[in-house]
């Protein structure tokens, strides 16, 4: 069976510090990978998605970047965190060759990031 691991679960970082959140998927090959941010009152906002190694698409301009160094590894980074980067970050995957109707999003348990 497929599993998704995301860490850390909680993170408190000062403004201006770097960030690295990691997500790995097991039990599947060539998944589409996603980073979402969830903020109160704003719902789930897609930040980045990737359809393959080294292929990153960004949905919104921001202080963050993403990388996919391996097929089942997705990393969210920042060189200098802002207060507005606080939120709940979720990694997710779908089967790469399927549509959303038969391969929905499978989410990790998220990282609660607080920038102080």
């Amino acid at each position, binding site marked *: 069976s497929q599993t998704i691991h995301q860490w850390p679960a909680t993170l408190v970082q000062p403004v201006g510090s770097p960030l690295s959140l990691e997500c790995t998927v097991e039990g599947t090959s060539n998944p589409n990978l996603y980073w979402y941010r969830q903020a109160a009152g704003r719902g*789930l906002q897609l930040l980045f998605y990737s359809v393959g190694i080294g292929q990153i698409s960004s949905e919104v301009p921001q202080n963050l970047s993403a990388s996919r160094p391996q097929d089942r590894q997705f990393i969210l980074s920042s060189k200098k965190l802002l207060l507005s980067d606080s939120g709940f970050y*979720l990694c997710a995957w*779908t089967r790469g060759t399927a*549509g*959303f*109707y038969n391969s929905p*999003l*499978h989410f*990790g348990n998220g990282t609660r990031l607080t920038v102080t």
Partner: protein
Amino acid sequence: TQLLEQSPQFLSIQEGENLTVYCNSSSVFSSLQWYRQEPGEGPVLLVTVVTGGEVKKLKRLTFQFGDARKDSSLHITAAQPGDTGLYLCAGAGRGGADGLTFGKGTHLIIQP
């Protein structure tokens, strides 16, 4: 931009009552998914509806996709405290790996 409006935003009811939450859009979606999210966890898929007019049941939960595939509803019968959570609808329409639009969710609290 495709938007999904969910209502109500918040709902608190007593155990045993029935409730319906709605997911509406002016756009047509090829499919619509419902997720439930508990605090500190990621959303978990409940159901996917694909065909206009489709009705799916999951124990006490009944999901309906509108005939025009622009809206959906979730009806819970005899709600229980374990139903408490954030219910999210998400529509697939544009195609491609990025084509999933989420609503802001309905926060549901079932009081014992």
